[in-house]
């Protein structure tokens, strides 16, 4: 009963946080506690409905083949000479979106709860919660969208919220800059996505995902292979920025300027996976174009490796996590690129839990150390902050890929599908990334939580509102991977593209090797950072490979390259256009404006206020129209002048 209701009213899930946003903005803002209550309450209720809806989808196997779609007509565009385009707003529920719906709302609920403790006493407390609610609403809307335009609107809303939240500490210049960077980078890429969507509408005449997938399957009736390739690549440009893929990943690490719950919510668990989700949703398009698939896979694998090599030298706790996110997103893209929606979504699912957990753990640490972010200045936190530390360790085990924690199963799945697809180079890259991941993550853990305590730090455990989410998410990080073990792969039965794929044989080789790789990474971190108390070896290594170290520490100077490009190319051409703007465009506009004003004044003079004049104008008007009638009509002139009756 209730499940049925939730299935057919899934639009409530984004609506509730949206309402919370409106209520906070217009009514509840002066009362922080009330605002937080409304926000968390709305989110929890949404999560309740999302859970029911997800349950409904997963217990009805028909939805795997035929998504549950319901939509209302939004508007009909009919231009003369073009087929009418109907645009709907609607809900599309299938296992993929149901999973996302549950995941996003579940994690958002706990992050909001965590924020109650974390943001306590902040002057913008209510505003922060209104933004969080708006963000959750947009993200959930994106997830359930049944058509591309609706999805794009949500996509942009998500980008806007991200801008607002990253720049939340707007008194800090760095936060403002980071917000702008995120917004601009994503906007640039969104333009590609928008072009892709427009191209799809023009080519296939529909925005509806289900219809589109049917038409794309027979794309030869509509268009050529070349156009398809172009469209697929254009669509992929959007996710490149949103999901922090090389070379548009630059905004994501800077985005850590936002409050930590934001990093956890947006930049780990939900928003950044929007790009992956979009690619997953549009896999029917990419599937038709092998080139695009390869592009996705190579971008993913390269990003994964590239970001991991940066993460190993970073010092700020959130920055390490940020690069780790970029790297994990690369994994997801890789999985999609080799054609496995199952593995990509599975890693997204597990990643959401352990990465949100680690960000919140990092937030807890920062909270305790008064925003001291350098891991080298921490140490021994495990004694004073047991809950934070132990949950973080669980997250570390999960991301490193130690069985049976969540990350192991999903990462193993990706490695297996890559290997099975015959992509040996990509497999090697991914496997090496796995090694690096275990290394840099445990470097962080050993440095921050173990070793000697620093006397200048006075850490303390965080309040319950912050610890409960940590514990819940840690439990998730331990268990959620069990849905997709090779022995009983329930996950693969739900979420797949094309044929449901049964792995059949268990790839023991890949499984054991990935576990070994993870252990090796952790062991290396152990020898370098925990066993070696004075960190002699590390310093020696950094000294010996100084250029490599600097390259990694400075993130391959990509930011600098963009800056250089901006200074020379963009600013240079801007100067040129500025002159054009001042003299030509402004000239025309001001001229027109002046003309408008003058003619307005001129015509105003006619308005004398005298009745006689008005009557005169009226009759002159009648006369003018009569004359006009004679000359403007097709044959009226001949009719009147020629006197034909």
């Amino acid at each position, binding site marked *: 009963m209730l499940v049925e209701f939730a299935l057919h009213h899934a639009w409530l899930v984004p609506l509730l946080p949206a309402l919370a946003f409106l209520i906070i903005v217009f009514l509840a803002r002066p009362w922080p506690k009330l605002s937080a209550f409304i926000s968390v309450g709305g989110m929890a209720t949404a999560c309740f409905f999302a859970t029911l809806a997800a349950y409904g989808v997963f217990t009805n196997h028909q939805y795997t083949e035929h998504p549950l779609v319901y939509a209302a007509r939004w508007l009909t565009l009919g231009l003369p000479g073009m087929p009418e385009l109907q645009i709907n707003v609607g809900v599309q529920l299938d296992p993929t979106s149901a999973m996302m719906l549950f995941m996003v709302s579940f994690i958002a609920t706990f992050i909001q709860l965590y924020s109650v403790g974390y943001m306590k006493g902040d002057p913008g407390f209510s505003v922060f919660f209104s933004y969080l609610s708006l963000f959750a609403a947009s993200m959930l809307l994106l997830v359930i969208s049944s058509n591309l335009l609706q999805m794009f609107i949500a996509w942009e809303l998500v980008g806007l919220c991200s801008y607002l939240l990253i720049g939340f500490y707007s008194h800090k210049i760095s936060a403002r800059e980071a917000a702008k960077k995120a917004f601009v980078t994503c906007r640039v890429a969104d333009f590609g996505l928008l072009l892709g969507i427009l191209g799809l509408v023009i080519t296939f005449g529909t925005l509806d995902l289900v219809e589109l997938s049917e038409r794309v399957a027979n794309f030869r009736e509509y268009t050529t292979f070349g156009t398809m390739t172009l469209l697929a690549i254009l669509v992929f440009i959007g996710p490149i920025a949103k999901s922090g893929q090389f070379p548009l990943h630059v905004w994501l690490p800077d985005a850590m300027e936002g409050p930590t719950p934001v990093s956890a919510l947006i930049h780990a668990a939900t928003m950044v996976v929007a790009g992956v989700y979009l690619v997953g949703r549009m896999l029917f398009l990419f599937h038709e174009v092998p080139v695009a698939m390869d592009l996705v896979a190579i971008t993913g694998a390269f990003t994964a490796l590239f970001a991991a090599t940066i993460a190993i030298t970073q010092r700020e706790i959130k920055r390490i996590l940020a690069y780790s996110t970029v790297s994990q997103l690369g994994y997801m893209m890789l999985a999609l690129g080799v054609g496995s929606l199952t593995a990509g979504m599975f890693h997204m699912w597990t990643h959401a839990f352990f990465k949100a957990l680690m960000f919140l753990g990092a937030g807890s640490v920062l909270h305790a150390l008064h925003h001291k972010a350098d891991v080298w200045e921490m140490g021994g936190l495990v004694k004073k902050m047991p809950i934070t530390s132990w949950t973080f360790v669980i997250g570390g085990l999960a991301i490193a890929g130690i069985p049976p924690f969540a990350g192991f199963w999903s990462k193993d799945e990706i490695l297996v599908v890559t290997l099975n697809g015959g992509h040996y180079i990509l497999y090697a890259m991914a496997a090496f990334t796995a090694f690096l991941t275990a290394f840099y993550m445990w470097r962080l853990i050993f440095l921050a939580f173990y070793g000697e305590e620093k006397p200048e730090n006075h850490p303390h455990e965080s309040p319950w509102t912050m610890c409960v989410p940590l514990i819940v998410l840690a439990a998730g990080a331990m268990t959620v991977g069990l849905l997709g073990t090779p022995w009983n792969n329930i996950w693969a039965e739900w979420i797949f593209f094309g044929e449901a794929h049964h792995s059949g044989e268990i790839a023991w080789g890949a499984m054991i090797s990935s576990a070994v790789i993870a252990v090796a990474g952790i062991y290396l971190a152990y020898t370098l950072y925990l066993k070696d108390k004075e960190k002699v070896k590390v310093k020696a290594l950094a000294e010996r490979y100084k250029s490599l170290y600097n390259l990694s520490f400075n993130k391959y100077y990509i930011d600098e390259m963009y800056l250089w490009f901006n200074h020379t190319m963009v600013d240079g051409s801007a100067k040129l256009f500025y002159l054009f703007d001042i003299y030509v465009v402004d000239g025309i506009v001001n001229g027109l404006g002046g003309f408008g004003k003058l003619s307005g004044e001129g015509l105003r003079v006619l308005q004398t206020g005298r009745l006689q004049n008005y009557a005169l104008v009226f009759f002159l008007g009648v006369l003018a129209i009569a004359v006009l009638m004679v000359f403007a*009509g097709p044959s009226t002139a001949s*009719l009147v002048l020629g006197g034909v009756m």
Partner: protein
Amino acid sequence: MPFDTSLLSIEMLTAALGLAVLILGIISPASAKKGLGWITVIGLLGVSGAAIGFWGTQGSVYSGMYLVDNYATFWKLTFLVAAVLVVLGSMRYVDNLGGQTEYYSTLIFATLGMMVMASAGDFITLFMGLELMTISFIILVCFRKNESKSVEAGIKYILLASMSSAVLLYGLSLIYGLTGSINIYEVGRIVAMNPVSPALILGVVMLLAGFGFKISAVPFHMWSPDVYEGAPTPVTAFLAVGSKAASLAILLRVFVAALPGIWEHWAMVVAILAGVTIIVGNLVAIPQDNIKRLLAYSSIAQAGYILVGLVTATEAGIKGVMFYAFLYVFATLGAFTVATYFYNITGSDKIKDYAGLSQRSPLMAVVMLVAMLSMAGIPPLAGFVGKFYLFTTIVDNYLWLAFIGLIMSMVSVYYYLRVALVMYRDEPADSTPIKVSSPVAITLVVTMLVTLIIGVYPGPLSEVVNAAAHSFFLQ
């Protein structure tokens, strides 16, 4: 069913309501007269309910003299809703002024006139409705009888309106003389079958002038800024909204049903009229410093946009007109209600006195802003969708007109935003907050919500309008 008088029931109800208010006003003590406004509102809402019941009814009374179809019903609902909003917005104004009995009953009779116009099936009914409306408005315009501006406006209106009525009547009689029929659809059949004569063209010219006066199309618009400025503001609002909408209803009926046979003779003229109206309305609005005059010119420009829908004389055009007219009602009423209330509090209509309104009353400022942005055609507000529907009908053959519409919409943004700038940027000279009374707040919120909702979700209204436009051709 030639004499099925039940089809006239909503008009009868309205007439009864007007008389009831008149009688109640006379017999009730002065202190109770404040309740008349609410009686009017409730009565009109009741009539609206009855009118909704007529949706889907198609028929005529007295051999086509009086038509009932979705087209007419849609317009009637528009007038009724407008009347309700005007009454809600003017209660306090009228209570300050006195004379509630006459005000409300006259307003109801004006609404009745509009309803008769929407349903008119022949020239006599048409003219009767038009005059009922016009004469009621003359009374309303000079309602502030102690104020010279109001009286001056009334005199100007009575003289010019009777002149335009005379011209209109002359045009109607010419057409009657040529066709021998006064029934609109019958005239349409006769005109289509017979060759065109110069006298018929002259008749069309007269009709254009007569109706052009009512919808204040350039060059027949001269009266409207003066009358709008002088009339009591709620009356101005109703004049700008109701009178214009009703005249559009009948203008469409006459031109599309009676004169489609000579469409190619008047299409270009209507297009030019629309273009000139858009240009002049928008340009002259720029230098205005009085909010009512600004809105007067803006409503002239809006009439120009609406005329665009008549050019093609197709179902799509009618649909565009009805859609735009409906949302024009809400945007204009929102703006005028703010102006009315602002005048009540401050006694000023000057734009510069609106400085800092966003601080004194955020609600009033935001309603004004939304109304103006909608009229300027900024998405996602209703005005954008309306303009989109109107201009798609002509973009094929009258690209120049679409271009004028586009350019002048940009010009209009200038003067609309000038008001917004004053409201939001400037510091108020007197920063006492303005408390908005509840009936006014209802009007404001309703107008704003409708403008927003139609803008974001135009689907349902578009379907209703489709059905209405479709019924037009079934008579």
